[in-house]
């Protein structure tokens, strides 16, 4: 069963919006999904020839569907993807100059807040023409829910023969264990020596993620331990590795999403934000 059936790209007349098309196209190709360009207008028929209106070239429309939506853009995009749960959105962090929280434009911010599917946010000003998802950075916080969320990225990696670098970032502060059932926090220097505990933990962490995130054995996995603040670690490894994509599972509370906000604000890499399923969040909260 396909995890993603459609990759939606909200378009307006800006260059920033159209700049993400190669990324969306590559992702749709990797996922075997349909590429859907959507343009939301307040009034239907405002543009007779949408292609011309959006200043799209025919080749950009290759194998894609172009669909006009009537209504306020953020609301209509959110509504469309909500109606198609096996979807993904690819959009710029912002398409205009108007940057709000975490550098997000108003539409991107609203779509992200409402989305229950992966949203790929592409930073402004990058060169994406020949973009391929070959190296991905996956921050992980020990929880089973976070591991399970990476399945769409795993499918992309499998198709693209990409390498995945897992970055373990600490998620607990002073608590001996993460409250989520099935979490796999860092070893606590148990039983004899760390040369055993850490090695065993690293092996287990990778294999559990492989199982839970459906990462095939064809995909290479590497694990890095982040020792400091999660956002700082992600940004530091972003600089070192220059990944094609950061895959960031997210618990959905934007107001308190300090890691997500900081990463979106400072990274130069596209970020796939994957909302963690509601039931998994409930378990974590419990």
């Amino acid at each position, binding site marked *: 069963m396909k995890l993603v059936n459609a990759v939606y790209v909200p378009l307006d007349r800006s260059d920033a919006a159209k700049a993400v098309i190669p990324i969306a196209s590559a992702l749709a190709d990797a996922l075997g999904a349909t590429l859907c360009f959507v343009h939301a207008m307040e009034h239907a028929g405002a543009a007779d020839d949408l292609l011309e209106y959006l200043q799209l070239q025919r080749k950009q429309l290759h194998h894609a569907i172009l669909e006009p939506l009537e209504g306020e853009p953020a609301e209509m995009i959110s509504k469309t993807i909500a109606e198609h749960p096996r979807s993904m959105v690819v959009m710029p962090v912002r398409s205009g100059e108007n940057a709000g929280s975490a550098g997000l434009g108003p539409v991107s911010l609203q779509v992200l807040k409402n989305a229950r599917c992966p949203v790929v946010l592409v930073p402004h000003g990058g060169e994406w023409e020949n973009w391929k998802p070959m190296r991905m950075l996956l921050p992980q916080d020990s929880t*089973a829910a976070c*591991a399970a969320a990476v399945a769409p990225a795993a499918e992309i990696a499998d198709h693209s023969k990409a390498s995945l670098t897992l970055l373990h970032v*600490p998620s607990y502060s002073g608590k*001996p*264990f993460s409250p989520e*059932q*099935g*979490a*796999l*926090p*860092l*070893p*606590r*220097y*148990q*039983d*004899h*020596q*760390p*040369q*055993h*505990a*850490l*090695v*065993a*933990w*690293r*092996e*287990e962490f990778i*294999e*559990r993620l*492989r*199982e*839970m995130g459906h990462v095939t*054995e*064809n995909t290479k996995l590497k694990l*890095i*331990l982040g*020792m400091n603040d999660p956002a700082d670690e992600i940004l530091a490894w972003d600089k070192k590795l220059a990944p094609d994509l950061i895959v960031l599972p997210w618990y959905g509370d934007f107001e308190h999403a300090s890691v997500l906000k900081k990463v979106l604000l400072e990274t130069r890499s596209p970020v796939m934000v994957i909302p963690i399923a509601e039931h998994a969040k409930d378990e974590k909260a419990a």
Partner: protein
Amino acid sequence: MVSDAKHEKPARSRLEEMVPTHLRHRLVHQDSNEWTTYSRSGEPLVREQPHNLTWVVTRFARECGIDPKEILVAYRTGDFGGSRVDLDIKEATFVDDGNPVALLGAIAEHMEKGELDALPEGPHMDPAWVILREGYDPAHELEVESLLTVSNGYVGTRGTLFERGSPLGPGTLVAGLFERIKEDNPIPALVAAPEWVRVRISILPEESEEEREEETASSFENDILGGTYQQNHRVLDMGSAMLWRELKHQDPAGRVTSVRGFRLASQEDRHLFLQSFTLIPENYSGRLRVEAEADLYPSKHKSYLNPYPSRIAIVRARAGKGEPIIVNYSYAGGAQISVAQIGVLNVTGNRLMHPAVSRIENRVANHWEFEAELGKEYRLDRFVSIFTSRDSRKPAKQSRAHVTSMAERPMETHLRSHLDNWKSRWSVANIEIEGDPASERALRFASYSLLSAANPDDDRVSIGARALTGNSYFGHVFWDTEIFMLPFFICVAPDVARSLLMYRYHTLTGARKNARKNGYRGAMFAWESADTGEETTPRHMTSPSGEKIRILTGDQEHHITADVAYTAWQYYLYTGDRGFLAGPGAEILMETARFWASRVVRKKDDGKFHIEHAIGPDEYHEDIADNAFTNEMARWNLRQAATVARELTRSPETRAGVLELLDRLRVDEKELSSWTEIADDIVIAKERDGVTEQFRGYFGLEDQTVSLERQPGGADFRVFLDIETLGRTQLLKQADVVMLQYLMSDQFSMEQKRRSFEYYETRTLHGSSLSPAIYGLMAARLEKGESAFRYFKMAAEVDLENNMGNASGGLHSAAQGGLWQGAIMGFAGMQASLEGLSLSPKLPAHWRELRFQVHWRGQLLLIRASNQRLEMENSGWEPVLVGARGSGLRELAPGAARKWKPVSENHWQEVA
């Protein structure tokens, strides 16, 4: 006594041929003054001479756990010198028969028939005897696999789902077979065997014969992994050591299939593994395909924790009756493992269907395709034999011969032998607690884990930190075995205890090398030991940031050397096995004492001997000096070696042998005296307000305490990367002084123990699974009932609830041993001395009675303890001295019982 050097194979006698291989270990055969006994796999072992019949019965039969009433002596008039003078065995039955061979043959036949009695069709119904886990959850699967391992001490197979395999690669580990991992830290690691438990069940699509022929074997879509489960659980039946799987599966077309079956590692024949499933199509008739696989390697990616075989070969894979599939793993270092399997499908009307063979992707399988009828039962039986290069130079050949021979007999025969064996073990090991079924189950699980980890038939292997339940710790052997597991075996299965100590004896050569390499004399047991006894602790590890971190435990955690010696003595203390003490035991004691004599350093300023640059049980503090635990254990080791040497040379029975040993080791009276002098002059730990200082300077460290509610905690790994910070505090990883005051109980007053316990309790993070049980044990002895039970529960949950979060890499065998000690040495207050065995029950308030058995000086004692009453019964052959706290020791005659009741806080009185 069986001599390793004298294992020979005499010509097969008529009698030997008449008794089936799997029953032959019950046979003792005398022919022309030569006694022959048989191993569990039926191999003849020539026994030392001379021995009379009384010896056979009183010594050998007891070793084997044979009830004297079950002994039958068949003889011809005139045998045994024409007299029965030495046959002082009242309980045995004597048959004077002209043809004893024929008589025994008839009896063997009768025994074989008995094997076919009714056998279990499902797991035990009593929840206190089973561990049940529902469904499949990838987040927890690895710890469930550890928990549900079946093992016989030779091979352990994790509780992987038969249809899925393990997410962490190989699930079958072989004891004693190591291969060096070629990473930047080359160390020997336990190797894995080809997986033998995978079975695929598919309902084939309805199609024409032609279409079916075109279908490739890998394209079936209705594999059991698809669809849904209406019922799906795994049950480990501890009583029978069988892992049951029960499931009801519904495929997308609504067809329901029930599957119930088991797997086991035979305790009777350790090379044999069995798997059996019954399938029932519940609401359909259709064509089924069953594949019983031998995975060539379950994973394409290589696991760091398991060495990868350099060569994987299908030695044989042919279709037909009695044709095994044989897969062989060869490792670069020379280790080989062969797994041979034969499968039989029992279709309706007891018709046997023999398999075809398929080779698909990375596996080779027996497969069957058949028309299954609604409501009918179809049973798959698999016989699996595993042999390694430790058993034979040609393990594939041996596994083939073995599996062929095993498959000639019905599954029930092997199952009965396995069950009988476990029944015999449980007849001693079982513990009953009135009033606390959860604790009873936890103790049963501890006993199950330990018994299934051990192989008394192979004294060149020991039990690793995670036994054969997972690949963490690479199968390395630590002090866990001696200090935490051995007490259980000494009391419950002395044959296993002896075997485990013999592993240390056999690795003395490696231990001597360790000592020499480090500039010491004698034998220095490895902190981490594998097959040779040489140190295998990694010298460094790579930190997450790529930095090399030096690992000091291999260089400094030397207390293990005294721990081994201490346990060798404990074995003698409980068993009275003089042969062991005068031989291997004495050699261990002498060589370890010699090590300590070279390890200590006399300081000019105080004239005392010190042990510098050490690590004690608390590994949060490295490179310390005069660790109280290490110093006192070393002192004991030195004194005890000298005492034992002198005592054994005084005894006429042992004098000659021990003089020979001392001569071989070049130990003279001067050296013995020097050991005593050194022992007397090793510095004694400082005491402050009655608290023993853990090591020199400990009290001067930054004082930090922890909340008891945070336990078990341990330090975050990141803290370890800055070990100096942790080492500057008084926080401990685990019981250290408290451990010492348990092992050397007589050296400390109750008040000293109480003060130390209270001080260290609030500074211990329990970052080791070994810690809670010892705190619980000492709390019980100090009458801190609530604390004692809290720690006991914490220890019980290490594996059953994965409360330390790392059970996925295997069970914590030492924690299981610690739990047993917590109940017996803690709550029941059992303590041994040269004079006798005494108890002092302090049970948790809700335990109405604790019932258990222990071997004491060769006699089996049944003990019933409560806070109001203590009863001991001797079901052995000879009288022993026993007592309750404060009442003095009394002789307990065979078949007799004595009872006590408490009369004051520290005093019990005998009652009629």
